[in-house]
């Protein structure tokens, strides 16, 4: 019963926070260039509008196309339970849950890619191949960071790795954690198709990655896909914030406030980066991701060194 309660609370928080963060990014981008921008809750209205519309399916698509939104959204919803957001240990936690975490991400990505091939739309195939290519790099870098965090926390459970002991490891392992945080931030930008990697605001077919894969979706399915993308941003930011803000007050509510402030700060930072940077040329994106890996590897060496 307690577990059920914490799961429901977590989903409530995540479900409301994910579109809100998206709204924060859009608002920041608008404010930086001097526009008023849509209201902060615009993503909610957009999602509601989409759920009221009917799904339109192309005749070439098969059942893969129809089940992909369900798989993507549900895998991300399960993922969100692994992150210690509301309750300090996450609702779902066990030794080795980081592997489960990464592979659940993989399942969502697999179905996203498969569904975009299913449409037979050549641009979607291009986007899918890019997604697969870049995720090869991000997964390696992500695993490297997880290894560092596991070494620091002496645990292979995500709730421990980014949980209550992080404030203690900052004074000891600060240098390694700086590298982990910067590497994870690059991974966050890449995984969510944010600006140095992909521009979420454009629908220019030759350059987009994530947007082109969901181009054939409409109605409720599109809402599920968009909601999944927002959740993914929240999940990655949710890994980054506990590392970046090493403050644990010990009580649930103040901690949650600090955490929410951290999430909003990350969203604002991403919005600012999107306003001041241009997208990288496509063949240079892998350099960014390799840099993320090199940073993580460097962090790994520093961790080993400081444990000598």
């Amino acid at each position, binding site marked *: 019963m307690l577990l059920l309660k914490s799961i429901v609370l977590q989903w409530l928080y995540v479900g409301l926070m994910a579109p809100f963060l998206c709204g924060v990014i859009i608002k920041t981008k608008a404010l930086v260039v001097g526009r008023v921008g849509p209201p902060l809750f615009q993503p909610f209205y957009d999602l509601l509008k989409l759920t009221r519309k009917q799904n339109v399916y192309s005749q070439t698509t098969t059942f893969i196309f129809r089940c992909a939104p369900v798989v993507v959204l549900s895998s991300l919803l399960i993922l969100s339970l692994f992150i210690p957001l509301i309750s300090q240990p996450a609702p779902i936690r066990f030794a080795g849950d980081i592997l489960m975490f990464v592979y659940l991400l993989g399942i969502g990505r697999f179905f996203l890619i498969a569904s975009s091939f299913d449409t037979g739309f050549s641009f979607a195939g291009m986007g899918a191949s890019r997604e697969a290519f870049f995720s090869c790099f991000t997964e390696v870098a992500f695993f490297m960071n997880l290894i560092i965090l596991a070494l620091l926390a002496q645990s292979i459970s995500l709730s421990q790795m980014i949980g209550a002991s992080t404030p203690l490891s900052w*004074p000891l392992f600060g240098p390694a954690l700086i*590298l982990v945080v910067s590497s994870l931030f690059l991974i966050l930008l890449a995984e969510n198709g944010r600006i140095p990697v992909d521009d979420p605001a454009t629908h220019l077919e030759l350059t987009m990655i994530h947007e082109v894969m969901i181009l054939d979706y409409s109605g409720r399915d599109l809402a599920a896909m968009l909601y999944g993308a927002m959740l993914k941003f929240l999940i990655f930011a949710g890994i980054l914030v506990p590392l970046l803000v090493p403050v644990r007050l010990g009580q649930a509510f103040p901690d949650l406030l600090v955490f929410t402030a951290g999430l909003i700060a990350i969203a604002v930072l991403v919005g600012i980066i999107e306003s001041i940077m241009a997208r990288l040329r496509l063949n240079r994106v892998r*350099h960014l991701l390799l840099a993320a890996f*090199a940073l993580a590897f*460097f962090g790994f060496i520093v961790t*080993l*060194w400081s444990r*000598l």
Partner: protein
Amino acid sequence: MMTTWINASCILVVFLALSILASYRMAGMIHLFAAQSLVVGLVPLFLRQFSLSQNDLMIVAITIVSKSFITPNILFWAIRHVPTRAEVKPLIGIGASLLVSALLIAVAFWVAASLQLPGLSKSNLVLPCSLAAVLLGFMLLVTRTRAISQVVGYLVMENGIFLFALSLFDAMPILIEMGILLDVFVAVFIMAIVVNHINEEFSRQPMTLVRSKMGENT
């Protein structure tokens, strides 16, 4: 407390060396180098825990001014006066050089672990990070084809050596330090002039080639 700052700045030096390796614009490389020199120049402050003699303070000031203001400005002057392309041209791709540099960092730490050096080091990350910076600078020097980026590689290497010297000597011999700084300054100056002269000497060459090809076409 100070150890944290020293460690953080050592990490930052290698981090910036990595980003210099990953950057594909000359101007970006020079900006990053200036930032790296600033960090390296600040390390003595942390090593002495802000209780500096006048000599130390002078060294810090001269290092920072010469390395992160004068030298980058000379390099900027050089790329302004040489109509070369703004992008670097590595012999091995940026992705590959990033992977190799990750390996080089590992090598630096491995060497530092087995190196028994006299003298007191206040932080255990100074030695490996300085070796890593030297190796990364050397990597930059070897794998880049354009003269300016090679100069930046040389300077990154010099920053590594500076950090290495800091880890070895408690009291920095001011004369040696000034000598090194002067050497570097003169070297950069000469290289800038050489780059300029190379450009003047060979500026007509590609144009003639272009003309002859145009003649063939018409």
